[in-house]
C-alpha cells in the first residue's frame, strides 16, 4: 500500500477522534454506539449547519472516504488520514482483541473511525471471515513479555496527567481506566484488552511507526513510554499492583500525630509508595500507611523521613523515626537493627495547613540511600511478581484461514486503508464525483457489504453536503494552516488568530510548576504570529521532534514527525515578518557581546532572575533557556518583543526593560534601546558557547510562609535599608520601610529569596521574589493640612516628627506596625487575605491621640488617575488596579503637583479613629 497525498499536499492527517455526543437511545432502548470521534469536527462543525460542507470535507479526510471512492477528477482528492500500519500488529495487540474488534469495531472501541465491515452478515459467515482475518493479522509477529512494576505505574500516572495526554484523551483513574472524556476527546477504548505491555510501550515510544503522518503525535521520551504503558495497562498482570501498602485516612486538627488506635478512619484502602493522594483534603488530615519490608541481610538500617507537618516511622511496632509536630518540610532519621526476613513498616503523617509532604528513604547493608516506597510489600508473604501473561489463547495461523484472510483483506477493502506487506488494494467503490450523497455508507442502518461507520446525524449531513458541493481546494496559507490545525487538533492546545485554544473543560488539567504564575506558565502559547516569531529551522525541529522549552509548563510540544514540516513554509508566508532599525556599533564585537552579557546579568536587566541559561537553572521561575533564544526566535521579533512584550504575549510576566523604546540603562553602550537589544542578541547568538551571565550561580533560599507569616528584616529593594518584609501564607506580601515609616510595596507570589543576604557576606538589596509588585507612594502617610489646598509635605518622616516604635506579632506572626506622628499614635495592621483566589492586602489603621485634631489626613494613594467606582468605596487607580477605603468621612480626590491624591480626613470619635484600606492589584 502506498500513501498518496492530494495535490495541495499539505494536510497532515490526524489524530483519530470522536464526538462524545451522548449516544442517543435507539427505538428499542438499545444504546447507539458512539459516532466516530473527530475532534476538529466535534469542536468546529458539530453545531454549525452553515459550514456543513466544510465539516464534511474535514470528515472525509478523517474517515478516509476517498481510499475507496477515488474521484475521477484528481483535483477533488481530499487528504486522508492513513489508518494504522498493520505490519507488526500482532506484536502489539492481543489476538483476542483483534477478533473482537473486527467483529464489531464500534463496540470494542467506541468512537473508532474503523467501519464495521460485517455489520449485516449472517453470524456464521461473519465469524468465518473474522477468524480468517484474525489469522492473517496474527501471522504478523509474536508478542514480547515485559515485567510491570509498581513504581513505573506511579510515574506513568503522573506523566499521563501532566504532559498532555489528557488534552486529547481525557482523564484516567488510578487504575489507568477511562475516567472523564471531554467533548472533543478521543477515547482509547479498552486498552487492557487490546495491548501487550511491550506493544503499548513500543507504540508510545514511536507512534509514527504505526500511525504515520502524526495521527498520534509522540510526547513521551525514553523510559516515560514504558511507565505510561504500565499505568494504562495497570492490573492486567496478576500479582502486580501499583498498590504496595495499606492506608487509613483520618481527619482532624492536630498539633502532633494522633493516637490512631482511638480514631476511626474516614477511609481505608491500598496505596502506592506513601502516595498522599489517598487524602481527601490536604489540611487537618492524617494518613497511616502499613506494609512490609523484605530485608535480605542482617544489619543496621537507617530510615529518613522528610515531612510537612509531622510524621513517625515504626518498624515492627517500634518507633524508629520521630519527626512529629507542626513544621515545614523537615528531615529526621533513625536507625534500626534488622534481621533477614520480613518486617512490618508503619509510617504516619499529618498536616495542619499549608504544604503537605512525605518522603521516606532508607539505606543499609548493600542498599544505598533510596526511596523506601518501592520496596514496600502489601503482604508479609514475599511477593511473586508475575510475568505478564501473553494471552488469551495461543494461535497458530492456519494456512487455509491465512489464505482466506489474505483474499478478504483485499476484497473487503482493508487494504484500501491499512498497510500490510504484500497485500494489495482490490476494492474500488463508486467514484467520489459520481456519488449522490445518499445510501451506501450514509444509510440509516447497516447494509450487507457496505461498511458501517455509525455516523451521527450531523456527520451524515456534513458528508452529504460535502459530496453535493465539493469544496474548492484551500490555497491561502492562513486557511491551510487553520485547516491543518483542525485536522491535527493543534487547536486542542494552541490558539491562533482567535481560533481554538484549550477548551474550558480541559483547562484545569494544564498545570505548571509555578502555580502563582498563572495561565502564562501552564497554557501552551498562542500561535498567532508564530511564523514571524520562530526561526524556520527551529520551527521545523519542534514540529518534527517536539520540545520542552518551557520547563515551568507541565505539558510539552509533542513530535508530529517529518510530515509536519509542511507547516514551516506556510507559517512563514502567512505571518508578516517583523522589522526593526539597523544598528551600527562604535565598539568592537567583543565589547558589544560583553555589554550584552552584562545586560543579561544580575547587575543590569537581570534576565537570569527568571530565565535559565545554557542549562544552568535560575533560582527564579525557570523561564526559557536564553542560550537557545537566538536559535529559536527571529532577531527582528526578539527586538520588538523586548520593547513591548505584552503586545506579543498578552499578560506575560516578562517585563519591558525598554519602556517606549527607551532603555533603563543609560550608561551601557550608547544608551539606546536598539543598540542594547542588538548587543544582547549578538551575545545570545553564541548560544551554549556564550559565557554565563553574572549572578546565575547561587543557590536559592526561598522564604516560604506556610502556616504563619515570615518577617524578614534586611535591605529590600524598594523598601530601604530598614526594611521589614512580611510574607503571608496567602501569597500576598509586603515590605514596610521603617526608616521612612511607610508601607513601601506589596506583591504576590513568592515572598523573598534570602540567598543574597544569607550566603556570603550578604551584600546589597534584594528585590521581592514574587511578582506583580505594587510600589506605594513615597512620603509620609499622615499629615495635618492647614488648608485644603496645602501641598502634601515632601520632607522625610523623621524630620516631620514621625517615630517608628516597633511592632507586635499575633500568634501566627502577623505584624501590627507601631509608629507615631508627633502626639498621634498609629497602629497599622496590614494583613493578607484571599478573595476569589486573588491574594489581597487589607490594612487597618487604629489612630489615637490625647489631643484630637480636625485637619489630620491620611494620604491613601498618589497616582496619575484615580476614578471612584459607583459602589463599595472602591477606586480604580491608573486604570490598572483597585483600592477600597472604609472611613467615617468621605475621602477627597485632589490634584496636587501634577498628580492625583486620595486624602482621607481623619475624624476622631473621642480619642480614636479607624480606617480600612484594601488593595486589589
Amino acid at each position, binding site marked *: 500500500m502506498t500513501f498518496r497525498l492530494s495535490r495541495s499536499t499539505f494536510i497532515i492527517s490526524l489524530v483519530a477522534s470522536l464526538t462524545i455526543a451522548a449516544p442517543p437511545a435507539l427505538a428499542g432502548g438499545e444504546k447507539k454506539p458512539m459516532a466516530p470521534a473527530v475532534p476538529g469536527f466535534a469542536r468546529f462543525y458539530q453545531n454549525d449547519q452553515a459550514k456543513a460542507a466544510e465539516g464534511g470535507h474535514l470528515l472525509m479526510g478523517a474517515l478516509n472516504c476517498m481510499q475507496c471512492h477515488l474521484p475521477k477528477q484528481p483535483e477533488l482528492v481530499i487528504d486522508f488520514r492513513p489508518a494504522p500500519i498493520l505490519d507488526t500488529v500482532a506484536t502489539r495487540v492481543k489476538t483476542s482483541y483483534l477478533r473482537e474488534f473486527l467483529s464489531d469495531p464500534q463496540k470494542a472501541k467506541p468512537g473508532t473511525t474503523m467501519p464495521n465491515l460485517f455489520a449485516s452478515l449472517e453470524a456464521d459467515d461473519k465469524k468465518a471471515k473474522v477468524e480468517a482475518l484474525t489469522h492473517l493479522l496474527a501471522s504478523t509477529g509474536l508478542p514480547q513479555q515485559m515485567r510491570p512494576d509498581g513504581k513505573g505505574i506511579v510515574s506513568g500516572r503522573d506523566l499521563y496527567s501532566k504532559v498532555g495526554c489528557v488534552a486529547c484523551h481525557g482523564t484516567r483513574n488510578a487504575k489507568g481506566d477511562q475516567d472523564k472524556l471531554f467533548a472533543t476527546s478521543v477515547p482509547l477504548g479498552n486498552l487492557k484488552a487490546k495491548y501487550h505491555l511491550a506493544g503499548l510501550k513500543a507504540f508510545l515510544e514511536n507512534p509514527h511507526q504505526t500511525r504515520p503522518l502524526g495521527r498520534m503525535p509522540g510526547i513521551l521520551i525514553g523510559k516515560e513510554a514504558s511507565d505510561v504503558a504500565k499505568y494504562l495497562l495497570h492490573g492486567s498482570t496478576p500479582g502486580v499492583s501499583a498498590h504496595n501498602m495499606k492506608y487509613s485516612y483520618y481527619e482532624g486538627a492536630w498539633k502532633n500525630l494522633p493516637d490512631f488506635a482511638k480514631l476511626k478512619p474516614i477511609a481505608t484502602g491500598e496505596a502506592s509508595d506513601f502516595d498522599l493522594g489517598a487524602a481527601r483534603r490536604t489540611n487537618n488530615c492524617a494518613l497511616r500507611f502499613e506494609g512490609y519490608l523484605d530485608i535480605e541481610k542482617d544489619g543496621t538500617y537507617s530510615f529518613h523521613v522528610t515531612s510537612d507537618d509531622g510524621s513517625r516511622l515504626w518498624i515492627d511496632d517500634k518507633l524508629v523515626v520521630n519527626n512529629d509536630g507542626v513544621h515545614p518540610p523537615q528531615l529526621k532519621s533513625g536507625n534500626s537493627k534488622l534481621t533477614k526476613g520480613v518486617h512490618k513498616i508503619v509510617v504516619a503523617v499529618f498536616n495542619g495547613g499549608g504544604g503537605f509532604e512525605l518522603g521516606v528513604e532508607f539505606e543499609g547493608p548493600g542498599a544505598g540511600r533510596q526511596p523506601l516506597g518501592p520496596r514496600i510489600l502489601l503482604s508479609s508473604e514475599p511477593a511473586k511478581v508475575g510475568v505478564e501473561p501473553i494471552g488469551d489463547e495461543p494461535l497458530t495461523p492456519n494456512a487455509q484461514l491465512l489464505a482466506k484472510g489474505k483474499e478478504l483483506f483485499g476484497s473487503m477493502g482493508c487494504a484500501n486503508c491499512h498497510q500490510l506487506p504484500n497485500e494489495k488494494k482490490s476494492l474500488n467503490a463508486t467514484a467520489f464525483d459520481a456519488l449522490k450523497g445518499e445510501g451506501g455508507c450514509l444509510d440509516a442502518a447497516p447494509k450487507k457489504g457496505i461498511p458501517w461507520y455509525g455516523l451521527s446525524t450531523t456527520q451524515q449531513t456534513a458528508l452529504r453536503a460535502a459530496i453535493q458541493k465539493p469544496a474548492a481546494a484551500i490555497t491561502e496559507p492562513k486557511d491551510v494552516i487553520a485547516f491543518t490545525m483542525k485536522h491535527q487538533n493543534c487547536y486542542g492546545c494552541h490558539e491562533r488568530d482567535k481560533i481554538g485554544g484549550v477548551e474550558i473543560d480541559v483547562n484545569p488539567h494544564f498545570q505548571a510548576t509555578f502555580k502563582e504564575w498563572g495561565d502564562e506558565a501552564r497554557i501552551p502559547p498562542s500561535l498567532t504570529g508564530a511564523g514571524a516569531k520562530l526561526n524556520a529551522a527551529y520551527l521545523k525541529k519542534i514540529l518534527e521532534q517536539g520540545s520542552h522549552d518551557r520547563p515551568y509548563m507541565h505539558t510539552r510540544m509533542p513530535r508530529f514527525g517529518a510530515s509536519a514540516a509542511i507547516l514551516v513554509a506556510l507559517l512563514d508566508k502567512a505571518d508578516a515578518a517583523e522589522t526593526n532599525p539597523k544598528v551600527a556599533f562604535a565598539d568592537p564585537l567583543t565589547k558589544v557581546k560583553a555589554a550584552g552579557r552584562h545586560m543579561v546579568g544580575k547587575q543590569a536587566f537581570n534576565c537570569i532572575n527568571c530565565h535559565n541559561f545554557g542549562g544552568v537553572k535560575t533560582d527564579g521561575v525557570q523561564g526559557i533557556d536564553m542560550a537557545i533564544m537566538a536559535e529559536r526566535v527571529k532577531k527582528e521579533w526578539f527586538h520588538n518583543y523586548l520593547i513591548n512584550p505584552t503586545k506579543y504575549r498578552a499578560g506575560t510576566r516578562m517585563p519591558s526593560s525598554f519602556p517606549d523604546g527607551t532603555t533603563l540603562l543609560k550608561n551601557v553602550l550608547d544608551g539606546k534601546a536598539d543598540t542594547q537589544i542588538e548587543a544582547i542578541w549578538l551575545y545570545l547568538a553564541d548560544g551554549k558557547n556564550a559565557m554565563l551571565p553574572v549572578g546565575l550561580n547561587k543557590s536559592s533560599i526561598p522564604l516560604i510562609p506556610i502556616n504563619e507569616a515570615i518577617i524578614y528584616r534586611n535591605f529590600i529593594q524598594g523598601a530601604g535599608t530598614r526594611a521589614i518584609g512580611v510574607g503571608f501564607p496567602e501569597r500576598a506580601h509586603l515590605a514596610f520601610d*521603617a526608616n521612612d515609616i511607610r508601607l513601601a510595596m506589596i506583591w504576590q507570589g513568592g515572598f523573598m529569596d534570602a540567598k543574597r543576604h544569607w550566603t556570603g557576606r550578604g551584600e546589597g538589596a534584594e528585590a521581592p521574589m514574587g511578582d506583580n509588585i505594587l510600589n506605594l507612594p513615597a512620603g509620609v502617610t499622615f499629615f495635618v493640612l492647614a488648608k485644603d489646598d496645602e501641598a502634601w509635605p515632601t520632607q522625610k518622616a523623621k524630620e516631620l516628627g514621625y517615630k517608628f516604635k*516597633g511592632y507586635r506579632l499575633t500568634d501566627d*506572626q502577623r505584624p501590627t506596625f507601631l509608629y507615631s506622628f508627633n502626639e498621634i499614635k498609629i497602629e497599622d495592621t496590614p494583613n493578607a487575605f484571599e478573595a476569589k483566589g486573588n491574594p489581597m492586602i487589607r490594612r487597618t489603621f487604629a489612630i489615637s491621640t490625647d489631643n484630637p485634631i480636625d485637619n489630620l489626613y491620611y494620604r491613601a494613594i498618589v497616582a496619575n488617575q484615580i476614578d471612584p467606582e459607583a459602589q463599595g468605596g472602591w477606586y480604580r487607580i491608573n486604570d490598572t488596579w483597585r483600592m477600597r477605603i472604609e472611613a467615617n468621612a468621605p475621602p477627597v480626590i485632589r490634584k496636587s503637583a501634577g498628580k492625583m491624591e486620595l486624602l482621607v480626613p481623619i475624624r476622631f470619635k473621642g480619642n480614636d479613629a479607624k480606617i480600612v484600606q484594601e488593595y486589589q492589584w
Partner: protein
Amino acid sequence: MRRSLILLAMFVMPTAFAAAQDKLPTENDYYKLHIFTIPEGEVLEGGALETLPGGKIALGTRRGDVWIIEKGLTDDPKDAVFTRFAHGMHEILGLAHKDGWLYVTQRCDVTRIKDSKGKGKADTFEVVTDGWEINGDYHEYAFGSRFDKSGNIWITLCLTGSFNSNSKFRGWGGKVTPDGKWVPTTSGVRSPGGVGFNAEGDAFYTDNQGPWNGPCGLKHLAVGGFVGHPDSFKWYKEPEAKYLGAAPLVPKSGGRMMVEAKKIPQLYPTCVIFPYGKMGQSAAGIDSDLSGGKFGPFDKQMFVGDQTHSTVMRVTLEKVQGKYQGACYPFRQGHSCGIVPVCFASDGSLIVGGTNRGWGSRGNKPFSVERLAWTGKVPFEIHEMKAEADGFTVNFTKPVDPKTAGEIASYKMETYTYIYQASYGSPEVDKTKPDITKVVVAADNKSARIWVSQLQEGHVHQLTAAGVRSGDGLPLLHNIAYYTLNYIPTAR
C-alpha cells in the same frame, strides 16, 4: 634540709619529665569542649549570646533569629533543648537581658523584645533607639553589649565598607542609656567584632586589622576617646556628639600610634594588641570571668573569641598612667567554627557561638554553638604578665619549679610594633630583642620578676617562657604571652 629537697627534686625530675613528655596534658584536659547539636535543618550562625534566668541561654543569629537554649549546662550537650523565640530581625550582634525583655542589637537599631502572652514566642518588638544610619552596605554592622552596671548597652558601629564613614555615626562607639538615648562616646572605630566589659565594668571592644589599624586589638570605649580611624570625625558636629567638643587632630599616616597619641590627647591606644597571625586574625566577642573560680584560675580575666582561628584567647588588663593596657595569652583552640560571640553562663562555663559565612575560619563547620567547661584541674599557665618600670612580673597559675623559673635561659623576649597608617594593616616593625638581665622567683613560687635590658614604649613585648617548669615538672600549657606596653610604669 632545704638543700636536700632541691637535690631530691633534681634527682627525681628527669624521670617525671620523661613520663610527662610521653603524654603532656592538653587544653582538653583542663577545658572540655561540649558541642551542641543544632536542630536539624536549622542554621544558627552565632551573632550574640546572653544568659537568662534559670540557666537558660539566648542566642541571636546572623539570620535574625533568637533561640533559647534550655538544659544547656549539663555534662551532655545532647540534653540541650533549642527553641526559636523570635525571628525576622536584622543580623543580631548583641543581646542583653533585663526585666523579662531581651534587648536585641541589630543592624538598624536596638529593639527590645518580649513574650507578653507567655507562649514562648516574642510578640512585642519595641524600638529602643535607632540613632544611627545604615546605607545598605553589608559592612555597616552594629555590635551591642550586655548591660553595664549603670544599665547602658554599649554599641560599636562598623564603618561603611570597613573603610569610610558614609552614614551617621559609622565608626563610632557609644552607649544606649536606660531611657533609650543614644550617646556616642568614642570615635575611630573601624571594624568591630564584639563589645563587652572587663571585671570592673568598663566597656571594651575588639577591632580588626585594616586601615588605621595595623593589627587586631582590644580597645577601650572611653567617653571622648578616639581609637584610631579618623573618618568618623565628621559626626562630631551632630547634636548627639556635640557634648564631646571638636573633633581631634587627624593623625599622620605612616607613623606609630604612641607617637600620634602624644600629639592627639583623645587618642586612646589599643589596650591589647593581638599580634596578627599569632593571636588570631579576626578578634571578636568579649566576656570576663566573674564566676569566682568556677571557670578555673582566671577569675576576673577577659576572654576574647577569634573568628578566623576559631580560638578563644585570654586577656589581662592593668592601668598604667591612667590608661588600660595589658597582655593576651593563647587559651583554647580547636573550636569547630569561627568564634564570634562568647558569654559566660551562670555556671561559669563559657558559651561560644560560631559562624564562618563570608569570612573563612579554621574550624570548618558553617556554624556552631559550643560550651567550654573547666574540668576542675588547674592548668600550668602564665596567669598574668604585668609591666614594671624595668621589666615584667609574671604570675603563674601553679607553683613553679624555682630552678627553671629562676633561670634567665628559661625566658626569651622580643618586641615589635606596627605602622599606624591609612592603608590596610601593617607588618611587625621596629623589632628588638632585649636581654633578660635578671630573674627572681617569688618566695611562694607563684611568680617571677623579670628584668629586661631595654623596654620599648608602644611595642608588643612577646615573652616566651619555654624553660619554666611547674613544681610537679610540667611545662607551661601555653608558654607565650604578648604584653602591649603603651606606657611604661614608673618604679614602684
